């Protein structure tokens, strides 16, 4: 990158010549790249290249006998007939449909409660609900795992007090137990997003509403909830992506729950992990990753499209 006119400060007020315009244009282009450059390089290497590589290897198959060969779309057709994969997708779909609404409703309630300015200690409450987000998922899962213990954990203590034999970690309730952990982890995060959009509402609106004799509920319904719609779209998309990528929580719980409770294909991500690192089938796992990415993107896109339509109204 050599510059035609390295340092040619133009005195203020002097008229622009044609040459000057050319130089400025040239310089602007070059400056733009300088700003984008670092990002573009990192983006290419950590985002574009891995995706292209995954796409590339998903067209191959590596066998213990016979080595590596090009198989076209074989991995994909096998994936579409793979019951274990679809059961994993089904599981995270159920998880998403149940856990995301509960978590977001809780987060919205909390945000409204803090914003109502009728509570004491809101600052503490805000920090306290956000804190779980700062705890690494592995640690919080271990912690919940000990709480859930039906013999030595908190659940165990409750059992012995109440004389019940409730086992949260049994295969039937495990998904709900994981949902609880995830909700605990992320409710504060979503609450903050909601709260920040609430705090942008000018106070004059509330005063006007008060003068018009609006009740608290009417204020919530007519002013606050519409304001939260924009952030709802964001939190929904984040949450859907997050729960489709469920991995840490079930993977850590595997060492706590009975051996047969969490299968290696419990979630699509866990399935990919096991295929790749235990089964030596990284090509097939790559195909799985690509398909999962497409599914998640499609869902996120539909959600975004819907919310945009809402906002257009």
């Amino acid at each position, binding site marked *: 990158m050599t510059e035609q006119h390295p340092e040619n400060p133009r005195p203020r007020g002097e008229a622009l010549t044609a040459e000057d315009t050319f130089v400025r244009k040239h310089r602007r282009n070059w400056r733009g790249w300088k700003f984008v450059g670092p990002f573009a390089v990192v983006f290419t290497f950590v985002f574009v290249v891995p995706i292209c590589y995954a796409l590339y290897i998903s067209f191959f*198959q*590596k*066998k*213990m*006998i*016979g080595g590596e060969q090009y198989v076209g779309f074989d991995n994909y057709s096998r994936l579409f007939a793979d019951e274990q994969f679809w059961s994993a997708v089904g599981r995270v779909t159920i998880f998403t449909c149940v856990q995301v609404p509960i978590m977001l409703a809780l987060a919205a309630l909390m945000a409204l409660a803090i914003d109502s300015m009728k509570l004491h200690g809101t600052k503490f409450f805000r920090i306290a609900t956000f804190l779980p987000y700062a705890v690494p998922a*592995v640690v919080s899962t*271990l912690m919940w795992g*000990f709480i859930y*213990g*039906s*013999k*030595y954990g908190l659940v165990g203590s409750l059992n012995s007090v109440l004389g019940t034999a409730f*086992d949260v970690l*049994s*295969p039937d309730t495990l998904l709900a137990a994981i949902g609880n952990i995830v909700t605990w982890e992320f409710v504060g995060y979503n609450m903050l997003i909601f709260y920040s959009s609430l705090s942008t509402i000018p106070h004059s609106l509330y005063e006007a509403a008060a003068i018009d004799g609006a009740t608290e509920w009417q204020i919530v319904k007519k002013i606050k909830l519409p304001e939260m719609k924009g952030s709802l779209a964001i939190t929904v998309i984040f949450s859907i992506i997050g729960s489709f990528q469920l991995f840490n929580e079930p*993977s*850590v719980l*595997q*060492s*706590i*729950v*009975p*051996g*047969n*409770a969490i*299968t*290696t*294909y419990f979630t699509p991500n866990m399935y990919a992990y*096991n295929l790749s*690192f*235990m*089964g*030596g*089938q*990284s090509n097939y796992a790559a195909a799985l990753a690509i398909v999962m990415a497409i599914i998640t993107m499609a869902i996120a896109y539909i959600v975004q499209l819907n919310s945009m339509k809402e906002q257009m109204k």
Partner: protein
Amino acid sequence: MKSLTKMIAGGLSAVMLFSAAACGGSSGEAADGSSGQKVTLNVWGWEPLLKDVADAFEKENPNITIKITNAGTATDQYTALNNAISAGSGAPDVAQVEYYATAQYALSDSLKDLSEFGAKDYSDFYTPGPWSSVNINDKIYGLPLDSGPMAMFYNKEIFDKAGVTSAPTTMEEYYEAAKKIHALGSDYYITADSGEPAPEELMIWAAGGTPFKVDGENLTINLTDDAGTQEFAKWWQKLVDEGLIDTKTKRWSDDWSRKLNEGNIASLTIGAWMASMLDDQAPDGSGKWRVANTPTFDTKATNGEDGGSTLAIMSSTDKAEAAWKFIDFAAHGKGVKIRVDKGQFPADKASLSDSSFLTKTDPYFGDQKYNEVLSKAADDVNTKWQFLPYDVYARSIFSDTAGQATLGKITFKEALKNWQDQLVEYGKQQGYKVNE
């Protein structure tokens, strides 16, 4: 905790690739270090005693430096190893590999056949179980480091309380004992198994089963008709159906060691190495625990192996001579005594019949001469057992399939068939000719 280490190892393995690749660059070194040039051997292993062995080895062989890297325990290390092998660089010269994973690496040509160094002459040096695991298709793929013949560790105090006066020697007696122990209270069980490959796959081995046969590219997977496998399924089905086994506690979990400690889990069929670990898991059990041989499924004494590992030379190394020197020292020479003296369970006959080994007592086991029992356990190992060339994967999906039987929704017969179906499918995908 295991998953935690798994994740750390996952991250480490990536780092390892770079650092190991950096070390591998010095290819100008002499192959065996005897010509005066310095050689550095990269050894991957998680066994802490390897460090002591390496120190002693370096003293005798000043030209060879041993660099031990802990790339994670067992499956975590295999993940790193697989990455290095498929990357084509960064693999170590020597790796610690468990017996059940040896076939996987041997048949994919990742390990060197040690016959050229005369390893075949060592066949009488080692006990039958470990030797049969490294001797694959008449080639030797590693030297046995330690072994884990299965034995039954039992809490004598609980057994006595339940009225089981002597340790069960057959499955029939084991079943009767299980009933008596469960009669002590609803949370007392003879053992725990939540559908895991250990103990289940190992009990199949101990039952004399031979469900897997490997002959080059030909595999036979026959869990449904194999006599030993079905014998195991029959007894385990009975124990699970009658609620005599704790099917909710996972091995090595926190609950598991607490229940061992408190006597709720009254016995374990597990590798002999447990003798040096039980006091950690169940410190309050001191003086209460004893060791007996694995109950047999018929009158003939057969046994299985739980764990144990070999030192193998990677076929990609260019320092095979030096590597052989090291593993020969560690697993056949002076290294054996160094490790056995520090409590590792030996894989060689001489150490197992050594009188100081046999007469060793431990107050934890009520001064029982427990090594006598464990030494017999090593003799009884069913040497017809073969591992699948993808046993690491087979075990990883065990709980998905065969392990579902302990949930009570399907029978062991059906569950084992599900495991078989997936193993057959995988085998075919990997290019094997599979017979059922």
